[in-house]
């Protein structure tokens, strides 16, 4: 008995060292990308990082806490437009607008989530789908504020400091990469903390965790709002990186892509959705020659994932590992 316990402990230790080595290699590769590859590849990797943060933060709500939502793209869009407008019309510095847009989206999500998350069954999912579409309509139609279908142009890049400027592709790449690392690390510690355990308990059995005294409504709104807030911050980065915004970037296709990426990777694993985001972005990019096929392939892929392994890639991995034993 104690032998197997010891063996397990060693196995865990080995697994941890292996994971740390993989993490280190991935980080080194990510830091080297702009130095050794072309501008195009760097650009694609920036997109992949942005998608990865969105998908990872989506996983906090849907994967760890449970409620299915379809409006992550809307929060991303609100963050992007809020930050762009604060700098363009409010004259604020990016470094002020960036946190403000995150907090704004956090509060916004709390206002939506507080009444919404009390709904049972699929009502909330359908409501978020609507909310996503509604926000798109607002962005598209508030012409005096968002410039409507013409989009916003000339969004200033982040101001430089300590001799670092953010006008070049490479420096923006590093800024987005570092934000991505911080965001993912934050999510990782959050889901492994006591709060994370509460969230998982809500996902597994909401009535039971309520019965043992967990304020499930509070934690559900909290997870939803934190996920949304991170999406808002990501939107702000996106706005100041690409320096132009268009409403269609935040139409419901975006929310849908986040859901697909998270499912391809495996909901409720954090690392799965991040890998899923990377894979899906890469394949989307490779399929640029046939844009009309892209969404068809992804919707078919989503249905295939649901049929073959609803837990996504991570589920497949654990199934293969389990089979080996």
């Amino acid at each position, binding site marked *: 008995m104690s032998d197997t316990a010891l063996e397990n402990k060693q196995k865990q230790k080995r697994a941890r060292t292996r994971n740390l080595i993989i993490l280190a290699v991935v980080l080194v590769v990510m830091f080297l990308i702009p130095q050794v590859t072309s501008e195009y590849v760097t650009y694609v990797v920036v997109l992949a990082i942005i998608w990865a943060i969105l998908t990872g933060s989506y996983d906090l709500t849907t994967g760890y806490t449970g409620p299915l939502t379809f409006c992550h793209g809307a929060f991303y869009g609100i963050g992007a437009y809020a930050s762009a407008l604060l700098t363009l019309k409010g004259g604020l510095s990016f470094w002020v607008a960036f946190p403000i847009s995150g907090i704004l989206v956090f509060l916004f999500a709390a206002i939506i989530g507080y009444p919404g998350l009390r709904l049972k069954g699929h009502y909330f999912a359908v409501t978020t789908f609507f909310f996503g579409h509604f926000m798109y*309509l607002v962005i598209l139609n508030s012409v005096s504020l968002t410039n409507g279908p013409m989009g916003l142009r000339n969004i200033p890049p982040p101001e430089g400091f300590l001799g670092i400027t953010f006008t070049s592709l490479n420096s923006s790449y590093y800024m987005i990469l570092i934000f991505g690392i911080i965001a993912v690390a934050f999510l990782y510690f959050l889901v492994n903390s006591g709060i994370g355990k509460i969230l998982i308990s809500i996902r597994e059995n909401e009535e039971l965790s309520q019965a043992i005294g967990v304020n499930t409504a509070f934690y559900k709104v909290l997870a939803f709002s934190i996920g949304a807030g991170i999406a808002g911050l990501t939107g702000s980065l996106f706005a100041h990186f690409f320096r132009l915004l268009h409403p269609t970037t935040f139409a419901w296709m975006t929310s*849908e892509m986040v859901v697909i990426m998270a499912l391809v990777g495996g909901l409720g694993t954090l690392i799965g959705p991040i890998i899923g985001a990377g894979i899906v972005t890469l394949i989307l990019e490779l399929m640029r020659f046939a844009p009309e096929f892209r969404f068809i392939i992804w*919707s078919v892929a989503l249905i295939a994932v649901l049929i073959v392994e609803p837990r996504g890639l991570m589920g497949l991995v654990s199934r293969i590992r389990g089979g080996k034993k």
Partner: protein
Amino acid sequence: MFLQQLINGIIIGAAYALIALGLNLIWSITDIPDFSQGGIYVITAYVAYFAVKMANFPFVVSLLMAMVLGAGIAFCIERFLYRRWTGRGRIQLLCAIALFFLLSNMAILLWTAKTKIFPSYLPGGISLVGFAVSYQRIVVLAVSLSLFVAVYLFIMRTKMGKAIRAASQDREAAEVVGINISSVNSAVFMIGGALSGTAAVLISPLYSVFPTMGDLPLLKSLVVVILGGFGSVAGVLIGGLGLGIVESLGGVYISSAYQHGFAFFVLILVLLFFPKGLFGRV
């Protein structure tokens, strides 16, 4: 002006109610908010368009074709996809949204994103003091209302209808007393698909045919389902007409840019104050 908008609202509302009726039956029996009906709406509209435009079929024939096609697609979706995941609502909902995504994008692939104008099948209309209604709009209203009556009679008078009512109240109990749930499922999906197809073909000549044409009718009929409450045929009709009228009048008197956003406000208000819908169960 007011009367004109009221009539327009009633007509578009009748079409929403038609899609919502099918969605309501499906949702109350299988617990799936069937987004794929939005995709069926798009595909049937295109097929009817080509039937009329290319093959010169009469409008009535294309309408029947759309009904059969819609019922067929919905039947296959339920039989080969949703049924795998009975009792796993999350996966069914994700699959429904993926199918909606798939079918609307298939329309882009097959027939390009270019808007197509559905030929008018019944020119002319009635013009009275203060308002004018084209015959085509009257057809929308007449067909919608007669289908409503037909579905109502089907549910209330036939044996299958009785089974549907029983299943919507309690699936397990219905199964225990020997009701064949899988044929009930097939029946409601076929009714839903046929109604979506009908709504699509009725509406297309008034607006036009394009790949994202299903988005707004789908979202609005989902609102109507929630408004009307599950299992209430009358609730769906009143909810549909109500939403149509609110949109039409709001579009004129409040803001035309947000005409399609009113459904969202109505939804939020109803969910906040009447979480079970306005009419509940029959």
